[in-house]
């Protein structure tokens, strides 16, 4: 791998870590939750509750995974 390749790799790794952080599943969950909210809104169903509920579930699941990993 050339110098440019190494630089691009470390540049990408920096931004990945900066935005996504320790748990990539949270990022995937957030995108899915936004899509779900948009789906409910498009179907003219009250959608405001969906995102906060999903966010709190995502936080709980991520914390559970973190403490499970801390114990292994």
């Amino acid at each position, binding site marked *: 791998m050339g110098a440019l390749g190494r630089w691009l790799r470390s540049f990408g790794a920096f931004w990945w870590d900066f935005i*996504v952080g320790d748990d990539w599943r949270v990022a995937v969950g957030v995108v899915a939750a936004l899509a779900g909210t948009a789906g409910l*809104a498009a179907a003219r169903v009250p959608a405001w509750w969906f*995102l906060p509920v999903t966010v709190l579930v995502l*936080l*709980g699941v991520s*914390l559970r995974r973190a403490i499970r990993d801390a114990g292994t």
Partner: protein
Amino acid sequence: MRDVLLVLAVFLACAVEAVEALTIVLAIGVSRGWRSAVQGVTAGLLALAVIVAALGPALSFVPLGALRLVVGGLLLIFGLGWLRKAILRASGFKALHDEDAIYARELAAARTAGRARRAAVGDWYAFTLSFKGVLLEGLEVVFIVVTFGANQGSIPLAVLGAGIAVVVVTVAGIAVRGPLARVPENTLKFAVGVLLTSFGTFWGAEGAGAHWPGADAALLGVIAVIALTALLFVALLRRAHGRRIQESQSATEPMEVV
């Protein structure tokens, strides 16, 4: 109300990051002299200002609905990261940020590093470390300033919140003449995590086409629900951590011989 919360969120986030940057700059300044350290800080602040000046106006051209969806999503991912770390630290599953220990480590490294002159910079090591400290800690603040400011249509207000935090932390650092170890960093990070997650939820849902009952007033409800749930997680995890310590202690105790 949203403006007050905007300034508060940016102020708290910037204060936390400024405390961390101050620790690095202080260690460099005390051990290697202030001239190159201040040059590094100035260059770092200039780089951050250029990023805000470039990104802020660019985001104002994006339609508000799309902006809220994208920015809401990014703030949610970012905020959940802050909140997750703060909850793990508050419950004992992650070590607390120790500014005194970081200061001592930086000081020891700075005292042993070599000295080289480049262009107008007398001490390249001091310059680059100060520059990187300010730039890397400041990038998170820039992200918050640009996203909050663009969504609210008031980047100057967000910059004001960040500017006040930098001044307050700098004055405190000069007064204390040491790292600001007494600043309750984890509590501040917890509050910032709650605010970022709440704003991200509010804007993200709006951007996805949802309508909040009570319009803007719903934001306060979102903040309350997320803060209370996060506190509940802290309480539950503290109990789990206590149980885990007890179990490990009883496993290492010698068995009683009858």
